[in-house]
C-alpha cells in the first residue's frame, strides 16, 4: 500500500511522517510519536479514551485516519500542563478523586480541556452532557463532574483576577 506524506503539529512540535492511507491517528500518535497518554478502549468511537484535540475540536482519534489530520494542530494529554505546572483540570481530578484506574483519564481531561473552552461556566447537567462521549468504568462520574466544575471555577477566578 503506497504511503502518504503527512505533516502534523502535536503538542507544539512539528512532525513529518509516511503513513498508509488507512492508518489511524491513534496509532500514529501512540506508536510513531510515542505519546501513549491517549488510549484505545473500543475502536468504535464510543469510549473516548483516545480523545485528542484537533484544530480546536475534540476528536476520537481511533476513528480518524492520520491522513485526515494532515496539517492539523493536535494536542494530547501530554501537551496539557507539565510536571510542576499542572493544568487546573489535572489538579482538580486529583483533588476530587476523579480517576481510579487512570485509563480513561487522559481522554477525559483532554475532552474537559476543550469543553471548558466551549462552555467556561457550565452547570452540572451541561458537564454531564458535554462529557457524555467519554466513558469511565471506575468512578461513576460523580467526582469527574465535581472536578470539572471545580476546575472551571478555578480557571474563571484566575481569568477574572487577570482582567
Amino acid at each position, binding site marked *: 500500500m503506497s504511503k502518504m506524506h503527512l505533516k502534523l503539529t502535536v503538542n507544539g512540535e512539528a512532525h513529518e511522517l509516511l503513513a498508509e492511507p488507512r492508518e489511524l491517528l491513534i496509532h500514529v500518535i501512540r506508536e510513531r510519536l510515542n505519546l501513549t497518554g491517549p488510549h484505545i478502549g473500543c475502536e468504535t468511537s464510543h469510549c473516548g479514551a483516545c480523545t485528542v484535540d484537533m484544530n480546536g475540536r475534540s476528536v476520537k482519534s481511533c476513528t480518524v485516519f492520520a491522513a485526515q489530520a494532515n496539517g492539523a494542530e493536535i494536542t494530547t494529554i501530554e501537551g496539557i500542563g507539565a510536571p510542576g505546572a499542572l493544568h487546573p483540570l489535572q489538579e482538580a481530578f*486529583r483533588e476530587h478523586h476523579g480517576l481510579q484506574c487512570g485509563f480513561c483519564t*487522559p481522554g477525559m481531561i483532554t475532552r474537559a480541556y476543550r469543553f471548558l473552552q466551549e462552555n467556561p461556566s457550565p452547570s452540572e447537567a451541561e458537564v454531564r452532557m458535554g462529557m457524555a462521549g467519554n*466513558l469511565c468504568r471506575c468512578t461513576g462520574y460523580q467526582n469527574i463532574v465535581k472536578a470539572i466544575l471545580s476546575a472551571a471555577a478555578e480557571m474563571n477566578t484566575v481569568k477574572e483576577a487577570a482582567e
Partner: protein
Amino acid sequence: MNELAPISREQRVENLKGLGCSRKRVEDVRFTQGRGNYVDDLKLPGMLYGDFVRSPYAHARVKSVDKSAALAVPGVVAVLTAEDLAPLNLHWMPTLAGDKQMVLADGKVLFQGQEVAFVVANDRYVAADAAELVVIDYEELPVVVDPFKALEPGAPVLREDLDGQTTGAHGDRRHHNHIFLWEAGDKAATDEVISSAEVVAEEMVYYHRTHPCPLETCGCVASMDAVNGKLTVHGTFQAPHVVRTVASLLSGIEEHKIRVVSPDIGGGFGNKVGVYPGYVCAIVASIVTGKPVKWIEDRMENLTATAFARDYWMKGRIAATKDGRITALSCHVTADHGAFDACADPTKFPAGFFSIMTGSYDIPVAHVGVDGVYTNKAPGGVAYRCSFRVTEAAYFIERMIEVLAIELGMDAAELRRINFIRKEQFPYQSALGWEYDSGDYHTAWDKALTAIDYQGLRREQADRVEAFRRGETRKLLGIGLTHFTEIVGAGPVKNCDILGMGMFDSCEIRIHPTGSAVARLGTISQGQGHATTFAQILASEIGLPADSITVEEGDTDTAPYGLGTYGSRSTPVAGAATAMAGRKIRAKAQMIAAYLLEVHDGDLEWDVDRFVVKGAPERFKTMKDIAYASYNQAIPGVEPGLEAVSYYDPPNMTYPFGAYICVMEVDVDTGVCDVRQFYALDDCGTRINPMVIEGQVHGGLTEALAIAMGQEIAYDEIGNVKTATLMDFFLPTAWETPHYTTDFTETPSPHHPIGAKGVGESPNVGGVPAFSNAVHDAFRAFGLRQSHMPHDHWRVWKIAHDLGLHG
C-alpha cells in the same frame, strides 16, 4: 542546628496520613499527565504482533485450515493452529475450575469468537490483514444456547472430548452437557419445613449473562530471551504470581526463569483473573520466533471471548410464618457455564460462595443445589466485581424477600427488619455453613430508612398510584430496597485455593536508613489505589509518613508471592499482611530503641511515630531515628537492617454489609426509568481512606446500574453474540448516571488486624438488587411479582403493557 519546636501529638498523627485519612492518591500524578504505563504502551525492540482468527460459528467442526495465503503476506512471521501447539501439549490448557479449554480450536469450535488460529506479523495491520486470509472450512453443527435445552436427552453433544466421562472435577456428571451438581445445606430438613409452612413464595430469578468490560481490554507482551533462557510476560493480570506458576507448569520452564509483570491495569473487575488463549499463544510465538510478541484484544474480542459473568437461573422457594418470620430457604440453580468450565472460583467452590444466599437474614434451615451446564457460549463465569457468585446470591435473596413481602402483603422494609440477624448473634453460624464475623444490621437499616424518609416516600408512592389511576400522571414511583451481606477476603488456606495455591497474601517491607520505606505486596491494583491506601495502613503501624512509603506490586521478580486482587480480597488479606509485617518491624524497632535509650524493651511504649520511655515522655526514639540506627550501630543480639515479611493466612472471610435504597421514576409509556435518589450506606469495617471508599461505591453503583438497567451479553438462537460492541453493550455515560449519596456505619472485623473488611464489590453486590427492586416496586400495586433483568426501556415498557397499563 536549632531544635525545632516540638510538634503536637495531633500534628504527628496528621503528618503520617495514616488510617482514616482521605489522603489524595499518589497514582494520580502520573495518570493525569498521561504517564501511566499500561501493557499496550510497552514497545520492545523487534516486537511482533499477534492477532486471532476467530470462529464465526457457535458450534461447528473445523474440517481444514489453510494458512498458505496468510503466510504469503509480507511481514507475516507465523500462523499457529492447534496442530502446531499439539506437539508442545499446549493446544488445550487447564482452567481454574478443574476443566480444560482449547487454546486453539482442536477439531471443532464451541462458541462464536473462539480462537482458531494465531497470526504473528511485524505490524498490527499486517497481522489483521493476514488473519482475514486464513481459510477455514467449517461444518456447522446444531447449536445449544439454552442451558435447560442443553440438558434434554437428545441435546447435541458439545464436549466430545469428555465423551463417556461420568465424573468431572466436582463429582458426577449425569448428562453429556452436565458439568457438576454442587450442594450445600440440609435438603430433607428444608423441604420438610417448606412443605408444612404457613406461607411459601416460589419464584424463578434470572441473573443474566453480562461482562466486566474494563475500559482497557486484555493483553500481554511475551518476551523470551533466548540468551539467558528467561521468559518475561507483561500483561493485564489480576493475579501475576499465579500466572507465573501456571506458565511454568504449562511450559516446563522453571519458575525462576519466568518473570510476570502486571503494569498499570486499566480496570479489571474480574475480567483479568483468568488465563486466556491469547497469553498462551503470545508466549509460544515468542519462544518460536525468539522475538517479543504483543497480543491486545479489541473490544469485540473482549466482549465475545474473554470472561463473561453471571448467567444463573435461580429457582427459589422461601417459607415463612404468617407474621413474616422466615423459616426456610431453598434454591436450585441452573448455571450456564458456556463451552468450557472456566469459572474463576476457589478450587473447592464450583459455584463460588453462592451459599451466602441466606443473606442478612436469620434463616434456620436452607439448601442450595447448583447444576453447571455446558452450552455454545463463551467460557468464563468470572466474579465481575464480586466475590465468587456473591452478586448472584445477593440478588436472589433480595428478590425472594420482595416476592415474600408480596405474598404476605407486608412492607418489604419491615419484613427485612424482623428477619435480620441480630447484633448479639455475631459471630453468626449460617444454615449453609458460614461464620459471619460481625454486623449490626438494624442500626444500618434504621439509619438508611430515616435518611431517605422511608415512610414519606411510601405515602408519596401511594398518592402516585392513586393519581395514576385517576389518569393524572403516567409515571410511577419505585422504592428499591436492599440489605446485603457480602463474603469477601478469600480466603483461609484450609479451604480456599486457586490451582492448589492457598489464598493467603503477602507484604514485604524494607525500611531505608534515612527513614523512608518500600513495601511490596502480592496483590495488584487495577484502580483501587493500593499505592495510596496500603501506605496508609503501614504509616499507622510503623510511624513513618505514608508519603515516605513506596508501595510496589505486580512484578513477580520483586514482589512476594500472593494470590492477587479480585473478590475484594486485597484489604482483608494483603492489608492484613501489611499490618502484620508492620508489627514485625515495630517489634524489632522496639529492641533497637531499648538499646539506644538504655532501657528494657518492656519499659517502652509506642506513641504514633516513636517509642517513648514509660513515664519519661522526653526520652524517646522516633522510627526514623531507629531506622538509621539499625543500619549504623552494632547492637548486640540484633541483626542489622530493618525489614520484615508477612504471609497472612486469614482465619475467616470478612462480611461487609450495607443498606441501599433507590428511588426511581418509571415512565409507563416509554419504559424510561430515572433514578431520582440513591442512598448507599456501607459498613466495610475500619475505614482506611474514606475518599477512596466513596469512589469505589460510586463506581460499583454505576456498574450495578448498567447491569440492572441494560447491560447484557445476549445471544440469538444460533449463538451469535448480539451485544459485541459498545453500541449494543450498555455502559452508562455521565448523562445516564445518577447522583449518589453515600453514608456509613463502622463495625470492625474482629479477626482482621486493623478491623477492615473490604468494600470494592459491595456497591455492585447491593446495587443491582436495589435498582431492580425499584423497577419491580413501581409496579407492585399493579400485580408485578417478578421480571427478568436487564430492565431496559423495552422490557419495562413490556411489563407495563403486560399489566394492562397501556389501556
